[in-house]
């Protein structure tokens, strides 16, 4: 049913730390691996070893350069997957009922056997979180690894999303953002977690932690300065060399 639930019992989601993400793309690979080998249609690739490779991914890492008014530019790596929005436009536009938001935990999923691959849900998502799989003809999106987080066959430490489990920098956190006492909610409160494109009115569950303020570099400090300064010695070997060269 593509009407959104009034409210969900929990709001499971991710908190992504833009301060610690090192841009290694490990989460991209582990997400693709887990979601190709497990639930649903595999994430296909087209022409993977040819001249024009492309493929379906549920999580992609962008990199942005931010230039403050003063001081050096900063490079920020920016992982992006479905934000499991509370007011998810992708759910209400779906004509078949394939897209839905779960009442029990707020996860936004696609029932692939109902999807006609019209693509309208991807059009309605501001974040580019949905991709139509070219081989299967159905819409793919982040499942919040619903087949891991409740999976009793996995050891307890693995019952978190694959991307979170994999991240070597600890930049991805998973938990209930509807519970103000949860670790993730605390983290969001402490670090000023933010919404992406709040003006689109989607009310994303996933939050992004902004980069911490950088140390200020003293403008005078220039590590190359000593090497670039003109030679002004008038005594010693360099002084002699200077004069000798002058005379030539």
């Amino acid at each position, binding site marked *: 049913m593509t009407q959104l639930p009034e409210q969900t019992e929990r709001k499971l989601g991710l908190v992504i730390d833009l301060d610690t993400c090192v841009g290694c793309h490990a989460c991209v690979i582990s997400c693709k691996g887990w979601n190709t080998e497990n639930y649903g249609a595999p994430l296909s690739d087209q022409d993977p070893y040819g001249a024009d490779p492309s493929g379906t991914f549920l999580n*992609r890492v962008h990199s942005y350069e931010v230039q403050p008014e003063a001081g050096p530019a900063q490079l920020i790596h920016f992982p992006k997957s479905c934000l499991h929005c509370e007011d998810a436009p992708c759910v209400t536009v779906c004509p078949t009922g394939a897209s839905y938001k779960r009442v029990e935990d707020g996860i936004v999923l696609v029932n692939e056997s109902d999807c006609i691959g019209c693509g309208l849900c991807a*059009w309605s998502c501001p974040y580019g979180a949905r991709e139509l799989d070219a081989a299967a003809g159905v819409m793919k999106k982040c499942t919040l690894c619903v087949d891991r987080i409740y999976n009793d066959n996995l050891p307890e430490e693995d019952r978190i999303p694959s991307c979170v489990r994999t991240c070597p920098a600890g930049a991805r956190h998973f938990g209930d953002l509807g519970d103000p006492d949860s670790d993730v909610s605390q983290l969001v409160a402490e670090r000023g977690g933010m919404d992406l494109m*709040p003006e689109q009115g989607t009310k994303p569950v996933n939050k992004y932690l902004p980069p911490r303020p950088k140390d200020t570099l003293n403008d005078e400090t220039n590590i190359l300065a000593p090497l670039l300064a003109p030679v002004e010695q008038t005594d010693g070997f360099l002084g002699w060399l200077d004069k000798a060269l002058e005379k030539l």
Partner: protein
Amino acid sequence: MHPAPSVIAFTTLSGLGFGLLFWLGLGYPNVTGWVAFVLFAIAYLMAVGGLLASTFHLGRPERFLKAFSQWRSSWLSREGICAVAGLIVMAIYGAGLVFLGTSWPLLGAIGAVLSLLTVFTTSMIYAQLKTVARWHTRLTPALFLSLSIAGGALLAGQVAMATALLVLAGIIQMVWWLQGDKAFAQSGTNMATATGLGSIGTVRAFEPPHTGNNYLLNEFVYVVGRKHATKLRMISLVLMIGLPVLLLLAPFAHLFALLAVLSHLIGVIISRWLFFAQAEHVVGLYYGKR
């Protein structure tokens, strides 16, 4: 947005087809027998042809029946229901005219309303999308409806109506273009809000997630041919509105009427191509392409 030929064909043909059905349902022209048969056949070829074309862009067209289920929330679902209901009602009404020579005006009026609702629901599929500022305006349904009714009047041979409605559609089209050019900037969504990094400084896309292409770039970040947009707008306006109006004002001749219809059709196709090709989806911001 990617201007998929199937979607352009769909919106153009079904818009005209349902426009013609609208006039036929109201009894303009009031015809029976063979003449009615030919007019209804043209309308159904266009409306049904357009709907069939729209299934070509589905990933799993064999499941299309499921698309009628979510009318409570989905404009696409509502469109499917209106289209099928309209086609069925108008088929019964048309059968009365063609085979029995009798007109059931109430049925025709219901069919006319359903035909217009189909065009309206089509336009709402686009107008509802907040992600595409150019489309997210009340002018989008106004544009689709005015073009559909004007084109329908042209096909139905309602010269005076067609002339007036074409001029109206032309005005709405121009306003829609001018508004649309400002819409993205006015929407308040930009690199700063997309990344949330605007408070630090000016954000620039440094490196895309992949060196290759992907679905998102193909579907949403279409930029080819934008540089010719102004010229194409002029061509579209001349073919869609200008030439047909001139031909309608000229003394009536069957050749002129046919030329007017063809010119209008090509003009609408160009306008629809621009409708998609010029539409900027906010996801382009993440790729630094806006």
